[in-house]
């Protein structure tokens, strides 16, 4: 009897291939959304406005009722974080800078690609597609990224709801007791060139 055809391995899926090729060329965009962060029983909310232009990034995090505004900028030279009381921190890497100043662990390097529905460059532990050939779930650099919702923007379907968690694991893959880190991202607005 004919067995059901195996789902095409991701790297053979033509729709996914075409989608990746098209999205990879999009290096200038702006998104606006909301972020909820959690590490064990600590966390917070922020609205996020993220503007990317090639190597240059500007991320504005604002807390509820307009409080606690933080601006993180990054370019090829390095990263700078400013707060609403005009304090400034600088470092080479934006993610480490954000962590040092706020204690938030946000995988910025990965997010830069994941928000477009793309894996970041480098090894991918696991990748699942939905029926339309879009990323459904991705395991990369220790993070588990679930793409819960897409919305149409011009030529592209782009993620509008993502759930990103990191469970530190022992080498054998069993979860270590360390806290679970969680980032929930809802993207309401995309601006593409």
């Amino acid at each position, binding site marked *: 009897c004919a067995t059901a055809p195996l789902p095409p391995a991701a790297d053979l899926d033509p729709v996914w291939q075409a989608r990746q090729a098209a999205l990879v060329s999009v290096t200038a965009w702006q998104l606006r959304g*909301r972020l909820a962060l*959690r590490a064990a029983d*600590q966390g917070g909310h922020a609205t996020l406005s993220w503007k990317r232009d090639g190597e240059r990034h500007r991320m504005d995090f604002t807390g*509820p*009722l307009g*409080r606690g505004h933080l601006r993180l900028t990054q370019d090829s030279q390095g990263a700078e974080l400013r707060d609403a*009381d005009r304090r400034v921190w600088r470092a080479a890497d934006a993610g480490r800078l954000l962590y040092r100043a706020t204690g938030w662990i946000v995988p910025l390097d990965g997010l830069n690609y994941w928000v477009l529905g793309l894996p970041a460059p480098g090894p991918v532990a696991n990748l699942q597609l939905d029926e339309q050939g879009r990323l459904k779930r991705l395991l990369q650099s220790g993070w588990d990224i679930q793409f819960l919702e897409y919305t149409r923007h011009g030529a592209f379907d782009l993620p509008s*709801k993502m759930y990103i968690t990191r469970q530190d694991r022992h080498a054998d893959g069993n979860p270590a007791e360390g806290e679970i880190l969680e980032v*929930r991202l809802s993207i309401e607005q995309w601006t593409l060139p």
Partner: protein
Amino acid sequence: AEAPRSGIDSLRRFFSEVNSYSARFTQVVLDERLSPIQESSGTLWIERPNKFRWDYEKPYKQRIVADGERLWVYDVGLQQVSVRPLSGGLNDTPAMLLAGRGRLEDNFTIKPLSMQNDSEWVQLSPRRKDSGYEDIRIGFAQGKLRVLEMVDGFGQVTRVTFQSSRENPRIEPNRFSFTPPEGVDVVGE
């Protein structure tokens, strides 16, 4: 006719005679070039001292409740609640200012501003330099609270305009209590 009310008089009156308040609000966030980057709307309730509830309805649902001791933020779409103690001071958040009690002058330098689109304005600049915002401007029309503007250190303006407001309405006490819904993560901030 009543003597024209200065912004300062309206501010005094709001803090001394208005002990509870409810209104619909629209909020717009303007970037440092004053171009709008986000609009939202909903309903708010205030009760002195230190109790308020901002229910954002559009474009997404968010509940911000100050129950007198703690500040709860519940993002319905993201299914997460954050909670932190209220420092109780007028400096906690500009929204807390409206629900605050005590002498404004202890926390702010207050200056009347010129009339602007038929509202009398006052400017409150926080005395503490780490309050997270540059200053607050409040606009009153015919003595009634009309606009609250919060300007942060980047020049970003959060402007809240109040409509169909009611002064000293009776508000159900449970309006200012918050119980996290079943199955929603609660995190300390």
